[in-house]
């Protein structure tokens, strides 16, 4: 029962209340007054007088619209032009077609007529563009079918489709890893991954290339740190990002060891399968297929459709729980127009081909990769080849660097130019040197494809041998490069200048 209460009794109580109580209430009332009178903290704007303003304006020097414009003979301003379709042989506008060893079409699926036909068929139904992002009228039946097909191909619950390979990887990583998290990444990861790591604002810990022991050492250090502050450790997510075949070195990652570490140290493992999609494993399903590792040992697989799939775009596959998150948090997914339906249709065709002929194609590709690897390994000692023998991407590096990256690049570029004149188109691996986290040494990147014949491989060997001998044996030619860098023809080895003997 509620007792009777009246105002009079309360006022009596107020008069008899202990002094401590009244004092405290007094303080509280002062508090209220203080709050009412307090002004908002002034914002930190500095008020300037008219004169000061004018002085500042007069002082201001606008920066050039394009800072540090490159020299006119910068290689990026003098790129080669391919006339016509990029196939196994390309026309560089010099009359004869040259053998193409620079494009990442390992299975040459872009040359298949049925792939082209399926794209054309789709073009007649849906037109060229999709006219919007996936969440905003940009989804067609073709996109949904392709996502289902990719998921089924990888034996996963769900996949998500992006419209650009680079942004796939650069969006997928920061969709999960945030400020305060830790990412363990191989030091040789490719540029899209580096951009993703940077955008995540997480703490990045690089381990030595393919060095599982170093990774474990770093993980143990992290465990020690975690023990000191278990509460913080509880709020920190840990990720591991690796490539299945490294674009920058051509090495295959030691996935079985990484999977063990993932389990032991409770990491979330993301793999970039840009190169290995369609080129590794018995059923060409990539690195998990190659090492026979079940898909649930890997949290997410990312990849581009710009290599084997001969299209554009990228994909991520994994469990529904993980992948679905990207439909609202993958920035490249949300804010880019979706993949043109016809390009998606061509990828569906590619997956058809991989599912039926895949095992044979991969076998053939591996044979050619091995043959090319043997050929490249027997080149003169002045260069060495890096990469696993079955990797379709190989890097030729100078055995003895001149000690200066620019000079190395100039020498390698002259080899490339010489080889092109002799009928083999290869390319220097291009990097944004000042943006790379761990710049790899300069190299010539050579890609294998499954249709290489024995004659083509021996021709490549001969051409490379000749170019290397010509460029690298002449000490005076090296000297000339160093002393006269201002001449365009000298530096970038146009035909006239490579004729030094």
């Amino acid at each position, binding site marked *: 029962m509620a007792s009777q209460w009246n105002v009079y*009794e*309360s006022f009596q109580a107020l008069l008899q209340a*202990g002094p401590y*109580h009244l004092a405290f*209430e007094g303080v*509280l009332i002062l508090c209220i007054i203080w709050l*009412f009178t307090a*002004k908002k903290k002034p914002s930190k704007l500095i008020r300037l007088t008219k004169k000061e303003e004018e002085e500042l304006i007069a002082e201001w020097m606008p920066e050039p619209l394009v800072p540090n414009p490159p020299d006119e003979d910068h290689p990026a301003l003098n790129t080669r032009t391919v006339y016509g379709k990029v196939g196994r042989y390309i026309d560089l506008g010099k009359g004869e077609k040259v053998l193409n060893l620079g494009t990442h079409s390992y299975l040459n699926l872009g040359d298949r007529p049925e792939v082209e036909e399926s794209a054309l068929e789709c073009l007649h139904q849906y037109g060229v563009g999709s006219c919007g992002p996936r969440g905003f009228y940009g989804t067609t039946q073709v996109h949904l079918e392709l996502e289902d097909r990719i998921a089924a191909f990888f034996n996963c619950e769900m996949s998500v489709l992006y419209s650009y390979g680079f942004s796939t990887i650069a969006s997928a990583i920061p969709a999960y890893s945030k400020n305060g998290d830790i990412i363990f990444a191989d030091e040789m990861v490719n540029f899209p991954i580096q951009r993703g790591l940077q955008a995540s604002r997480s703490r990045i810990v690089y381990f030595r290339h393919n060095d599982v022991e170093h990774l474990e050492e770093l993980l143990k250090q992290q465990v020690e740190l975690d023990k000191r502050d278990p509460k913080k450790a509880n709020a920190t997510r840990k990720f591991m990002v690796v490539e299945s075949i490294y674009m920058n070195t051509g090495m295959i990652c030691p996935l079985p060891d990484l999977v063990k570490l993932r389990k032991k140290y409770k990491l979330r493992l993301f793999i970039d399968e840009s190169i290995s999609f369609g080129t590794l494993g018995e059923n060409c399903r990539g690195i998990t297929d190659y090492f026979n590792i079940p898909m649930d040992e890997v949290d997410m697989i990312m990849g581009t459709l710009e290599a084997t799939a001969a299209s554009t775009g990228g994909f991520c596959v994994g469990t529904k729980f993980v992948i679905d998150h990207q439909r609202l948090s993958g920035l490249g997914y949300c804010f880019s127009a979706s993949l043109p339906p016809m390009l998606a249709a061509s990828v569906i065709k590619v997956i058809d081909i991989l599912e039926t002929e895949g095992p044979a194609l991969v076998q053939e590709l591996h044979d050619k990769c091995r043959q090319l690897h043997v050929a490249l390994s027997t080149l003169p000692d002045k260069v060495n080849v890096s990469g696993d023998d079955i990797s379709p991407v190989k890097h030729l590096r100078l055995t003895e660097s001149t000690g200066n990256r620019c000079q190395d690049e100039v020498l390698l570029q002259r080899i490339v130019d010489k080889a092109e004149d002799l009928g083999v188109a290869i390319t220097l691996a291009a990097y944004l040197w000042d943006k790379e986290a761990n710049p790899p040494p300069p190299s010539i990147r050579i890609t294998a494809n499954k249709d290489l014949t024995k004659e083509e491989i021996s021709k490549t060997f001969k051409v490379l041998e000749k170019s290397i001998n010509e460029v690298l044996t002449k000490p005076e030619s090296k000297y000339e490069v160093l002393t006269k860098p201002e001449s365009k023809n000298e530096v970038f080895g146009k035909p006239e200048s490579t004729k030094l003997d």
Partner: protein
Amino acid sequence: MLSGGHGEENPNSSWHSSRGAWLSYLAGLLALHLFLLSIPMISIPTAWTLTNVIHNMANYLFLHQIKGTPWELSDQGKARLMTAWEQIDYGQQFTTTRKFITIIPIVLFILTSFYTKYDFNHFAVNLATLLLVLIPKLPQFHMVRLFGINKY
């Protein structure tokens, strides 16, 4: 969801400021008090103290305990370690919203003291919970985790 539709980088910084939110707060408080008063076993002083204690507990939980936002922000997790109180008005002190939210528990305490007839036991309980919500609201305690409590 991604924020941005409201023109706000972090919607958690502004919704407390709307007059509708203030009115709902007061209405909720009144409803709680009337509900407690309507229970026959509870005397009027107890009902007031209970109102005060429940209010302060909820206030502490929602403003000073739970961190982050229900929205996914483009700030890449900057608000992840901030309580709701710290996010109000992007951390600016002495704004109207902050004053309002600070004054409510004080006024409630003074009313409770009056209606509990300045009884010492009631006073002790009400004082303790009042300090629990008042201290973290002080500008000097912005982003401070006393003794590392509730740090992560």
